[in-house]
């Protein structure tokens, strides 16, 4: 038996008022692994991300971090564990510059004042590793291209040296060239031994990057696939519901990974 997974969800459920959005979700992410989270609109992907990132905590179920059960009640809990989230809308402040956005809420101070130089230095250091097309660090983020903004959002999530990163549709608003750059970046994160949960509608991205795919349908698990062996048709039919897997899979089957 290998080391326990970085993050494991066991029987996680979430209800918004009368609507049961997630039912008994099973999910495992290991270090150095990209797991694609797939599903049609309304399948519960974004809700699951919010559960893991602590924005809207789970009602029931167990969340395990490296094999021990943990509570994620607030975004700060997730951050302390080492979980970083890049939201689909990026959640950047358009009027602040790149440095300001990266360090928003955790500014470095010197004699009580913002230490712009140190923050700029670390930003430069971080971005140099991530991208070749360095944006103007002192330009407001609103004036950057969408690909650059995506890079800034990912860079921000990497600041706290997270172990697991959640990417919600990172390529949805990008052109081909920029998508490729972001995908290279994800590849790089995996090589560094991070766990990545990638939400995407783009099967091409999933095939190219992910090690495993987890399909949600109507708030339930609807299949686990090894991306290298499963065919695209199999995965898609699981997403659309053409192949109805057993809605509730016992935990040990996911654990078998």
């Amino acid at each position, binding site marked *: 038996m290998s080391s326990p997974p970085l993050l494991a969800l066991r029987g996680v459920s979430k209800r918004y008022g009368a609507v049961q959005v997630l039912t008994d979700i099973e999910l495992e992410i290991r270090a150095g692994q990209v797991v694609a989270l797939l599903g049609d609109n309304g399948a519960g992907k974004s809700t699951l991300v919010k559960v893991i990132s602590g*924005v809207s905590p789970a009602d029931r179920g167990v969340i395990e971090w490296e094999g021990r059960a943990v509570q994620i009640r607030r*975004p*700060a809990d997730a951050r302390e564990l080492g979980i970083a989230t890049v*939201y689909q809308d990026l*959640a*950047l*402040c*358009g*009027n*602040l510059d790149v440095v*300001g956005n990266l360090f*928003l*809420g955790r*500014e470095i*101070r010197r004699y*009580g*004042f*913002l230490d*712009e*130089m140190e923050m*700029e*230095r670390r930003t*430069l250091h971080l971005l140099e590793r991530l991208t070749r097309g*360095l944006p*103007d*660090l*002192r*330009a*407001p*983020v*609103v*004036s*950057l*291209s*969408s690909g650059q*903004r995506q890079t800034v959002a990912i860079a921000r999530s990497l600041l706290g040296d997270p172990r697991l990163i959640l990417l919600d549709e990172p390529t949805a608003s990008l052109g081909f060239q920029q998508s490729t750059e972001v995908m290279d970046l994800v590849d790089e994160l995996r090589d560094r031994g991070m766990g990545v949960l990638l939400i995407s509608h783009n099967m091409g991205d999933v095939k190219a990057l992910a090690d495993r795919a987890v399909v949600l349908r109507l708030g339930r698990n609807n299949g686990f696939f090894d991306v290298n062996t499963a065919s695209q048709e199999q995965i898609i039919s699981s997403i659309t519901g053409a192949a109805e897997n057993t809605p509730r899979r016992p935990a040990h089957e996911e654990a078998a990974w």
Partner: protein
Amino acid sequence: MVKGTRTMADDRRTGTAASPAGDGGGPRRRAVAGTLERWVAVARRRLRAGEVGSLPVVVVLAVVWITFQSLNDNFLSPRNLSNLSVDIVGTGLIAVGIVFVLLLGELDLSVGAISGLAGAVFAVLNVQNGVPEWLSLIIAVLAGTVAGAVQGYSFARTRVPAFVVTLAGLLTWNGLMLYVLGTSGTINLDENGLVAELTGYYFTHDAVAYAVAAVAVGLVLLVACLDRRRRVAARMPHRSLQVILARAGGLAVIAFTSAYLLNRFQGLPLALLIFLVVVAGLDIVLRRTHYGRQVYALGGGVEAARRASLNVTRVQTAVLAVSGTMAAIGGLFLASRITSVSQSSGQGVLLLNAIAAAVIGGTSLFGGRGSTWSAVLGMLVIQSIASGMAITDTPAAVQFMITGGVLFAAVVIDALSRRSQEAHGRA
């Protein structure tokens, strides 16, 4: 006259290209030309991207001054400029508070009423009840802080737009002021008291004005050089010495010319000194502290700020408390100018002028962009127009229309620059 026409531009580095200035090992002259060229290139790119900063208002101010000077030789006389510099202070201080609220993308309509309330509180306590001046002053200012904080907290918790909350506040505080004043319609302040001195005192010794100018230039130079040294040591992009010296030189010209002109009348007015110190201090708070960064972040996107785990309620409350405090301080300066408080204190065009000053000075109505210096520049424009109209015997009707035109132009520039910034980002 004013010690800092450069505002946000102070924050801009000459560029972020990884190589420091003057690399390449070529002849020194070429390196210098290269630095300046790069600086100009960055400035031009930013102008095209819609970051116009305080450029338009400086142009407007120059046009206004040249126009009135050509109509009447007395306009740019030391006496008139000195009076102008004191006249801008009361409303200008209120406008500084407005800048904070505008940075959130909100409006505070209660500042006029709060300024009147503060004046009334001071007058009733000090003149009618014999409370010591300093204590009355503190209580009056704190009354503004509390009024602002109450509004801020209601705004933050209910998420009702601030202009509605403060509209209710306008009526409430105005009513409270009338209640405080009671039957006494007008209260005259002590002609030689502390508050009267706020706008009545001048540092008549020439050396004071020059010393203040020298200290200001010296501080700017010192901070810039220290920052540069640290950046050079860390091999980070930094401003070239030429740019630093050019900036300090420009500031020195403005500061010493102002000092010279003020000394030719009655010397440096205390009111102007307080105003500039407050504006510079709050500018540092906004641009260089954790709190200020949060204010800008909220103006850029409340949701993004919340997800970055900022305490949105606290920042919003604090911002309106600042605006209430500044309104109260401004109200005391306004009362000082006429050494009396009456039922009409804080009414009329005061509120509109304060908001107009902040916007004309270049603070965006859409939130997230602006600086406290825009209150100074905007007030200079508004007060210059008023003063010029008075000197040239033009009716007040024309003055309102011209000021309205300038305000409209400022709003249009604001909207256009915002749009071009966004269009720039869509590349």
